[in-house]
C-alpha cells in the first residue's frame, strides 16, 4: 500500500508593510482591526461556518497564520477555517502569539452581526473589506438561496485567486529614489491605560447628507472634512490641557491612503501608505476653513504616484538590503521594534482611517443594516478612529484604552458647532 504524502500548505512572504507588525507586538498589544456587517436577521452560525469554509479557500493570503522562519516571519494558509466565536466582551481583544500561530484572524458573531478581526500583517482595510463582502455574499447565498452578482468587490469564490491578488505591490511600484521619513513628533496626552485592558468604543452615527453638504460648502471631500473636525477637536483638547501656547506641540493626524487608487494594483494584501497633515498650534488659532485647506493641500502634495513611490522605495530599500536580510529574526525584531517605537507612532496623535462609502450588489443591500470599521488602539497612544459609510450614515468608531472620553467630547462639540447631529452609542452600559 502506498502512503499518501500530504502536500504542505502554500506559504507567502510578508509584504513590505506587514513586516513591522509582528516585530512591533507587545505582551498586551498587537495591531488588529475589525470590520463587521450587521444584518436585519440573526446569524445562523451553521450556515456561516459553511460560508467561511468556502471563503477561506478563495483568500489564501488572508485566511492564514503567522509563522516564524530563521530570518523572517511568513504566512501560511490555514488548513481549515477558524472556529466561529461568540462575542464575549469588548471588540479587538488581545490576539496573542499562540492564537496567531493557529490563525491570524477571527470570525465573531453577535446576534445579527458578523465581525472579522484581522491581524494587520494579513491585509489592509481594503483587502479585509473584500474578504468580508465575499463572506457575507456566500452566507446570504447559502442562507437565502439568492445569487449575488460578481461586482463591487464580490468575487467568484469558485475561482482560484489570481497572482495579482497575492502579489506584494510595494515591491512592484517602488520608485528609484527613496523619500525621507523625517518629521517632528506629535502632541500626545500622557494618560494611564485601564488596568484590565478594557477597550471603550464610542460610535458616532452621522447622517452622510449633513456631512456632504458641509464638505461641499468648504469645497473639500468627506475625508478632508472629517479629518478637519478631528484636528480641530485635537487642537481644542490640547488647548484645554496645555495653557501656555508656546509649550504646545504639533497636532498631526495619520490618514491612511489606499494605494490601489493611485497604482493599478489588484493586491488583496497590504497596499496602503499614509499622509500626515499637521498643524502647529504655537502659530495661533486655526479657523476650521484653514484646517481644511492645510489637509487638502498636504494630501494634494503627498498623494501622488511620484511621492508615494518614493516613500515605498524608502521602505522597500530597507527590506532588500542584503545585510538586513541576513540578520536572524530575533535580532531583526529588536531593531524593528526600536524603529517602530521611535519613529512609527510618535509622529501622529492618532489615526483616522476612512474606508469610504461601501458599495454592494443591490441584492445584498436588502439584508444588510449597517457596517462598522474599528481600529485597535495604538501601542502607546490611547486613541484611534475608524470610519466607514454605508447607506445614508457614516459610522465613526472611536476606540480608546483610557477611562475618560475627552477626545470624543471635543469631537462632538466641533460637530455640534458645525450644526451636525450625531447619534452616539457605546459598549459601556
Amino acid at each position, binding site marked *: 500500500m502506498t502512503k499518501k504524502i500530504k502536500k504542505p500548505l502554500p506559504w507567502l512572504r510578508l509584504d513590505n508593510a506587514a513586516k513591522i507588525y509582528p516585530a512591533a507586538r507587545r505582551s498586551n498589544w498587537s495591531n488588529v482591526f475589525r470590520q463587521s456587517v450587521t444584518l436585519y436577521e440573526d446569524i445562523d452560525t451553521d450556515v456561516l461556518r459553511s460560508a467561511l469554509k468556502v471563503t477561506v479557500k478563495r483568500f489564501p493570503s488572508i485566511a492564514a497564520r503567522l509563522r516564524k522562519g530563521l530570518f523572517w516571519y511568513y504566512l501560511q494558509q490555514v488548513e481549515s477555517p477558524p472556529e466561529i466565536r461568540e*462575542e*464575549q*466582551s*469588548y*471588540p479587538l*481583544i488581545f490576539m*496573542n502569539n*499562540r*492564537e496567531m500561530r493557529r490563525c491570524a484572524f477571527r470570525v465573531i458573531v*453577535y*446576534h445579527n452581526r458578523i465581525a472579522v478581526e484581522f491581524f494587520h500583517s494579513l491585509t489592509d482595510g481594503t483587502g479585509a473589506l473584500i474578504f468580508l463582502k465575499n463572506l457575507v455574499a456566500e452566507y446570504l447565498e447559502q442562507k437565502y438561496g439568492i445569487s449575488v452578482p460578481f461586482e463591487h468587490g464580490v468575487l467568484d469564490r469558485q475561482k482560484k485567486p489570481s497572482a495579482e491578488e497575492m502579489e506584494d505591490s510595494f515591491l512592484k511600484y517602488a520608485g528609484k529614489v527613496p523619500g525621507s521619513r523625517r518629521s517632528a513628533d506629535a502632541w500626545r496626552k500622557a494618560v494611564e491605560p485601564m488596568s*484590565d485592558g*478594557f477597550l471603550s*468604543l*464610542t*460610535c458616532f*452615527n452621522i447622517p452622510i447628507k449633513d456631512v456632504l453638504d458641509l464638505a461641499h460648502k468648504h469645497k473639500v471631500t468627506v475625508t478632508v472634512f472629517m479629518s478637519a473636525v478631528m484636528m480641530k477637536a485635537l487642537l481644542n483638547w490640547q488647548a484645554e490641557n496645555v495653557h501656555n501656547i508656546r509649550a504646545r506641540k504639533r497636532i498631526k493626524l495619520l490618514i491612511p491612503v489606499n494605494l490601489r487608487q493611485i497604482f493599478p494594483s489588484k493586491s488583496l494584501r497590504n497596499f496602503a501608505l499614509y499622509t500626515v497633515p499637521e498643524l502647529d498650534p504655537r502659530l495661533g488659532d486655526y479657523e476650521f476653513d484653514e484646517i481644511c485647506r492645510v489637509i487638502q493641500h498636504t494630501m494634494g502634495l503627498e498623494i501622488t504616484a511620484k511621492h508615494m513611490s518614493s516613500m515605498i522605495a524608502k521602505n522597500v530599500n530597507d527590506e532588500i538590503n542584503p545585510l538586513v536580510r541576513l540578520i536572524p529574526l530575533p535580532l531583526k525584531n529588536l531593531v524593528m521594534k526600536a524603529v517602530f517605537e521611535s519613529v512609527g507612532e510618535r509622529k501622529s496623535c492618532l489615526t483616522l482611517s476612512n474606508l469610504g462609502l461601501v458599495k454592494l450588489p443591490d441584492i445584498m443591500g436588502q439584508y444588510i443594516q449597517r457596517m462598522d470599521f474599528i481600529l485597535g488602539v495604538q501601542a502607546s497612544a490611547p486613541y484611534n478612529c475608524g470610519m466607514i459609510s454605508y447607506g445614508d450614515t457614516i459610522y465613526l468608531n472611536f476606540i480608546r484604552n483610557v477611562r475618560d*472620553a475627552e477626545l*470624543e*467630547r471635543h469631537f*462632538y462639540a466641533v460637530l*455640534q458647532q458645525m450644526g451636525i*447631529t*450625531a*447619534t*452616539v*452609542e*457605546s*459598549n*459601556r*452600559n
Partner: protein
Amino acid sequence: MYCINCGVKLADTEKKCPLCGTVVYHPDIKRPEARPLYPNNRTPKPQTNPKVINGFFIIMLLIPMLICFLADLKRDGNLDWFGYAAGGLLLGYIAIALPMWFKRPNPVIFVPCNFAAILLYLLYINHTLDSNWFMSFAFPVVGGFGLIVCAMVALMRYVRRGALYIFGGGFIAFGGFMLLVEFLLDITFGIPFIAWSVYPLIAFVLLGGGLIYLAINKSARESMERKLFF
C-alpha cells in the same frame, strides 16, 4: 433621547451618556428596549486550552495515586489502604475535573453522577470491610441527600424566577432529611431515635418557611432587599 448635560443624541442602547457619563433618565419618556452594542461583560474569558487543563488534572491525580500505591506496597508487600485513597482521589477528579472535558457542562447531569460515584465508593468500603451498613444506612442517606440536591439543581436550572421557592422547599426537605438520618442511625447502629434531629428540623423549617413567605409576600421581600442590599 438627548443627554441633558452635553446635548448629544443617544442611541436607545445607552443607559449613560458615552461622552460625559450622565445617567439617561426622563420621568415622562419610556425608552424602548434595545439590544446593547456589545455584551455587558467587561472581562473576556481567558483563552486557555481545555486539553492542557485536563492533562494537568490527570497528572495531579496520577502522581498522588502512584505515591500511595508505592507507599502501601512497600509497607508489607500488600495493598491495604490504597483502594480508599485512590477512590477518594477519583471522587475529587469526578467532582472537579470531569465537567471540564465538556464545553458547557450541565450540572443536572454531573451532580447525580457525583452522588452515584459517592455511593459506589461507599459500597466498595463496605465490601472491603465486610460490614453491613451500606444498604441500611449509606445508601438511603446519600440517596436521599442526592435526591434533594439534584431536584434543587434541576429546578434552579430550568425554572425561572423561582429561587426563593426552590431554596425554601429545599430547606424544609433538609429538615425532614435530618429525621431520616437519625432514624437510620437507630436502625443500623442502635443510637436512640428522636434525640437531636428535631432541632435542625425546626431551624430548617423556619428558614425554608421564611423564604417561601418572602417569595409570596412582595412587600416583605422588598423590605428585606432594602435592609440587606450590599
